[in-house]
């Protein structure tokens, strides 16, 4: 690596680039989870959806040669997982958190089962836009090589933030999430709204998975996700169910995740594994700092089981 050419400046630069690269799956999963949780349900199974999305995107991209078809496949697969979660939670006494854990195991198992033949072949990548082409320094170019999905994710965050406030659908989701009784009084069916909200959440998580296998790290392995799906759930709580907050928090997490590789690129190898734990430690600290036993969280959907 020529990172030493620009000295320690390589660290913040690599972290900026890393934050953009690493944060994209967080953005999609957390936006998806934000929609689901705003409707009053929690889906912990997005970790499994993420892994299955990564696998199906990669498999379809290998078979068809088109990363966009892979992306489509991942979102459809994610939609199915989400709808399944939403459907099964409609039954009385079925615990949405426990079903999420089960779907996490099931999704990963299914992805490993069908993904075995696709560990070897290589799939085409999703395209990136070289915003750093003006610079001669390779590190700058690398850091500003931004994938289209990141831009779509950013736009989606702004759109959802607007849509929750200003559209009829946004209002319906929020009412169902805050009070099922009020929703019933309005003539809405909370179960159906939650079913659809969980389905959309799953589809977005599937897209996050597609990014993992089709861009960064850019291959399908059984270790492709290391808890991103779960961290995204914690992140939504931290972001107070606000899509713009989700976007900012995802960038922060991406930066933390890029800390280890960035330090490694300038030759710091001591304690590499501890830096690798940085995003988890950061998540935990944020959760501790933002939770309180004496009050419910500001902005929390009233029907959400996890904040009760």
């Amino acid at each position, binding site marked *: 690596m020529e990172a030493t050419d620009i000295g320690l400046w390589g660290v913040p630069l690599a972290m900026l680039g890393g934050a953009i690269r690493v944060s994209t799956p967080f953005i999609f999963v957390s936006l998806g989870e934000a929609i689901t949780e705003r409707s009053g349900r929690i889906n912990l199974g997005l970790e499994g959806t993420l892994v299955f999305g990564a696998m199906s995107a990669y498999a379809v991209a290998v078979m068809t040669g088109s990363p966009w078809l892979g992306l489509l496949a991942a979102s459809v697969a994610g939609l199915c997982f989400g709808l399944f979660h939403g459907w099964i939670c409609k039954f009385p*006494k079925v615990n949405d958190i426990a079903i999420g854990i089960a779907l996490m195991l099931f999704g990963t198992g299914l992805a490993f089962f069908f993904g075995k033949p696709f560990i070897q072949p290589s799939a085409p990548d999703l395209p990136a836009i070289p915003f750093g082409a003006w610079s001669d320094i390779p590190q700058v170019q690398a850091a500003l090589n931004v994938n289209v999905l990141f831009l779509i994710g950013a736009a989606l965050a702004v759109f959802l933030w607007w849509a929750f406030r200003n559209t009829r659908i946004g209002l319906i989701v929020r009412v169902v999430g805050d009070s099922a009784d009020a929703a019933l009084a309005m003539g809405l069916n909370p179960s159906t709204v939650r079913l659809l909200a969980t389905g959309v959440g799953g589809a977005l998580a599937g897209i996050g998975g597609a990014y993992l296998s089709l861009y960064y790290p850019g291959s399908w392995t059984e270790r492709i996700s290391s808890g991103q799906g779960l961290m995204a759930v914690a992140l939504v709580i931290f972001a107070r169910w606000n899509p713009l907050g989700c976007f900012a928090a995802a960038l922060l997490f991406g930066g933390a995740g890029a800390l280890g590789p960035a330090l490694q690129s300038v030759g710091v190898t001591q304690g590499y594994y501890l830096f690798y734990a940085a995003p988890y430690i950061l998540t935990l600290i944020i*959760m501790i700092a933002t939770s309180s036993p004496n009050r419910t969280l500001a902005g929390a959907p009233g029907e959400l089981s996890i904040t009760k």
Partner: protein
Amino acid sequence: MTDMVSSPDMPGILEARGYRAALEWIARRAEAFVIPLAALVVGMVLFSLFILAVGRSPVQLYETMWRGGFGSWFSIQNSLSRGAPLLLAALCVALPARLGLVVIGGEGAIVLGGVTAAAIGVVLNGAPSFLVILLMGVGGAAAGGIWIGAVGALRHYRAVNETISSLLMAYIAIALMNHLVEGPLRDPASLNKPSTQPLSDVYRVGNIPGMEVHWGLVVGILACVLSWLLIEKTRWGFAARIAGGNVRAAQVQGLAVGPLIVGFTALAGGFAGLAGMVEVAAVQGSANGSLAAGYGYTGILVAFLARHNPLAIIPVAILLGGIDASGGLIQRRMDLPDATVLVLQGMLFIVVLFSETFYGRFKLFNPDLWQRST
């Protein structure tokens, strides 16, 4: 006169009442057995359909699974060995569950318990073996107990969601283990697979006499029985069940809910830490990446399948240990991926959770409703 009339019939009435009482007694308890067993069967049928869909024979699969898990004395012993850590890992989920907490990060406690035990075994090299093994067990349990106890404390005193925090702590624990095993505690001789220095043979936990199964199985079964006694027969268990049902009610009763939650989660983590110690002292011989073999996650499934009843954990853990053990044979004989077992476990998990919706739905299991129907 009334005596004269009724007395000849008395034995008959008593008999009928006794018969009826016995039926009611059975009916009330049958639900807890029939629904999970039915869920198990439905899960296996669904899995058969899955196997059919990928073009294989479910009959052959279950036959292979049976042979790999329980078909011979050799495979039974193998299943028992694999079930041993699952017993302890499942307790790590079941004990907090009685308090209404969903703790899923047992894997972290297992890993830390294993590393701590390995470090103690290496540092105290030369001390009497009885003492070292005891300290390894205590150290492993303490490490796991602190780890999961912290999750409980965060839950009670800071209202941090225990499901997410325990899983984050598991990832942190695995990173910590990798750091220790690749850095400060690394045995320079372990080249391909970084490990701590191997324990000397006198500190290894051996097999139960007459079996190829290590003592971890006995430890696990004892832990389950003690946990059952704790929950069902002591005032702490009673208090925990009240707090699990309704925290406010428990607080109004003056129960110290905080210490109760921290104590139960610490005990749960202690059991998982002990599982890590057993893995190191009886199976691996040193701490390395194999500690994070997924026992913590299979333990979640075991606990839910056993409906968080410590005694029910014993058969369920051995059953799932057998399914785990047959994974290799399924892979070799049927050319299916090793993840086949994971798919089965996932399906069973979903069906078992779904079956919760059927409790209290059947008149058959509720004698109070019998009269109305007849």
